């Protein structure tokens, strides 16, 4: 399932692991990120994400929290438990701007938090900012 494209602007050499079960969201976020020069590796659930991480080391992980099979909470906890992967920043994406979600996400190890709806350009801005700041 994992593949990468870079058919837009100049590649910036950064790889993003996008974990998102919704096809359209995945295509939109991947599309805009690639357009702005990111290499994007996609996964649709927590299990796939961890599989990807066995072979690829991304610069940042965008993790939807509500996922089938293994949700984002669990996947994040596992990733942060692995010493080799612990320092990869994870930004949580959530559709429910529920009170306390941000705190909970940070508690399981998320380094950032973006509440949906997120416009494609906004996502790029946030990811740029995050990678520059870290």
């Amino acid at each position, binding site marked *: 399932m994992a593949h990468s494209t870079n058919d*837009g602007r100049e590649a910036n050499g950064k790889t993003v692991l996008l974990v998102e079960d*919704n096809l*359209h*969201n995945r*295509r*939109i*976020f991947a*599309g*805009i990120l*690639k*357009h702005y020069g990111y290499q994007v590796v996609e996964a649709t659930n927590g299990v796939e994400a961890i599989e990807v991480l066995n072979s690829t080391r991304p610069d940042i992980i965008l993790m939807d929290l509500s996922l089938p099979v293994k949700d984002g909470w669990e996947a994040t906890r596992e990733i942060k438990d692995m010493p080799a992967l612990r320092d990869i920043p994870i930004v949580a994406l959530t*559709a*429910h701007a529920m*009170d306390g979600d941000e705190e909970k996400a940070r508690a399981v190890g998320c380094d950032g938090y973006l509440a*949906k*709806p997120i*416009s*494609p*350009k906004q996502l790029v801005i946030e990811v740029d900012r995050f990678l520059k700041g870290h």
Partner: protein
Amino acid sequence: MSKGFTETGITRALDPRGGLGFFQRFQYRLLGYLLALSIASSVVAGGIYYSRQVKFVEAEQAKRGRTLIRNLSGQSELGAYAGDATFLFGPARRAFQENDVSFAVIYNRKGKPLLRMVKPGVSVEVGLSKQLLRQVLSNPGGGPVQRHHVEYNDLLAPITSIHDDAEESLFGTQINPSLVAIGVARLGLSRMPAKQKLDEVLRWGIYLALIVLAMGTMAALVLARQTSKPIMALARGADEVRRGNLGYQLELTRSDELGLLAESFNRMSAKLRETVESLAHLNRNLEQEVVKRTAELRRSRDFVALLNAPLQLDKLLDSALRALVEQTGAPVGAFYLKRVGGELELVVSQGAHAGAFRDPDGNSPAALAATARTRRPGTTHPLPDDHPLTVECPQVRGILCVPVLFQDRLEAALILGLHPSPSPELIDFVEHAASELGIAVANARAFTAAERLAKELERRNVALLQQRDQLLEVSRLKSEFLANISHELRTPLNVIIGYTELVGEGVYGPVNPDQSESLAGIIENARNLLALITQILDLSRVEAGRMKVKLKEVDLNQLVREVIDHMAPLTKDRPYNLSALLPDEGLRGRTDPIMVRQILINLLSNAIKFTKTGSVEVRLQIDGEDLHLVVEDTGIGIRHEHLELIFDEFRQVDGSSTRQHGGTGLGLAISKKFATLLGGDLVVESEHGAGSTFTLILIRAKIASATGEYPLPELAVTIGESDGTFDE
């Protein structure tokens, strides 16, 4: 004295024999008074007698003295004249022979004693003084001169002689031309006889006084006894009464006040006895009555206790009938219960089988029907010899029919088979029992009905609980649906917006200006739809009471700055930028930042929408206890008549405005509701054509909540402190 009527005091006062001091006793006091009176009167009487007797004796003696001295002087004329004692001896002797004459002396006119005779033991001064002689001689015709001596009366009288010629007296005084004093006769008259006589008088006086005294004393004694005796008798009588000898009668027949008193006492005593006897009689009757009543009560109580136990009608009647038959000794008995149709049906019987409680014609007893009709308590009816009851139970000669009533309504009826003449007490008891039974039957019926009702109620409760559970489930599903719809509506919209933006960004190849404008149109309307959905859901959550206020410590300055940054893109085709006027000091408060943010966004989007030129400004300011978040614009403003309406849902000032400016008309309604939830308010000032000023008022510690079930919003404001401490 105040303790005078202690028990001993009364006893003492009532005891006629003892206790009182001697002088306290009336008898002796009276006696004392009477004795004093009789002593006084005897002394007075004796004194008067004595003094009269003394005067009399003295007068007698004086008279005798005068007679004796006159005789002596008269008889001594010759001897004196002759100066010869021989002639004097005879008269002197005669005088001297008198027992009471102590001495006799005859003097010549010169005072020389011519003769003297003195009784032995009498001392007498014979010589006469000249003065005395002259005094005696100077009055030859007068009475004797009297001188008092201790032992005798010394009487001196002149001895006179009749002379024709006046003769000069010895002293040259012409005394009397016819009488001439020629000597002096002197006589000592002993006081002894008078004294003896007076002593005798005194003795008699004393005797008299003593007699008077004795009589007085006796009279006093008699009087005192006469007076005090009835009083003592009264006291004794009162004492007798006190000791319980009621009706004690005094034997005192007198016509005076004491007699009246005694009569009164006797009447009182008799009345007392009568009263006490009638009281005792009454008491005895009462005791008998109490014993009787107690027995009746015990029977009633046992019966009532019996009735209180079972609440099922047939059990109740069965045990009641057993008890009645046992208590009355009736050989047979039966209970009839009134059924729904009104007829009486035999429910339980004792002593005879149910069939026996029918008249010979096979019908239920006519007497029972009469009782049911009249409801007259306790009627007895004789039974004919061929009545089934009599046949089955020969000692039953009659029946007692008693209606069992509750609040004047026939509940049941009782038949007791009886001996020929039941006692009134027995009938009373049965009637009383029947009245208690009426209540019990009504209770049992009510209990049955209540039980039925309770079952029905329980059934309905169960149904209601099921319904409630269903409703709760529906409500939960609805809430879930609302939550889901929010997600399910937004997700595709976000996808639409996302793809559109992606295309617009040229991710899939270049877009020309027409395409770009169309894509922008898609995005704008999709966003409007998203906003509408969000607002409708917010509103429904507020109205369903599901919108929860979540208080947090909020840096309000930062919140305003963030919202302005967020809204800035909306002014890109406006000739102004959003401006903010914020306090220099950090202004923090405790409130719900999401709601405040939503309100500010709504106000700003409205302001920008209706302000083509001019300015839109946000101000954060403190007003006393309140904090004001103000959004002021120079836009088209609001007509005065519309000011009341702008906070209503789905309302813009007019239809054309909606078309012209877009928007849902929900923003202000939601903002107003949020402001209320926050314990504050949202107010507006506006003038048509001259802009509007919306003010969100956040009130510190204001007790106000739209629903009343959320934590009270409060706003703590600190100025000049950024260390995160709050004053509340």
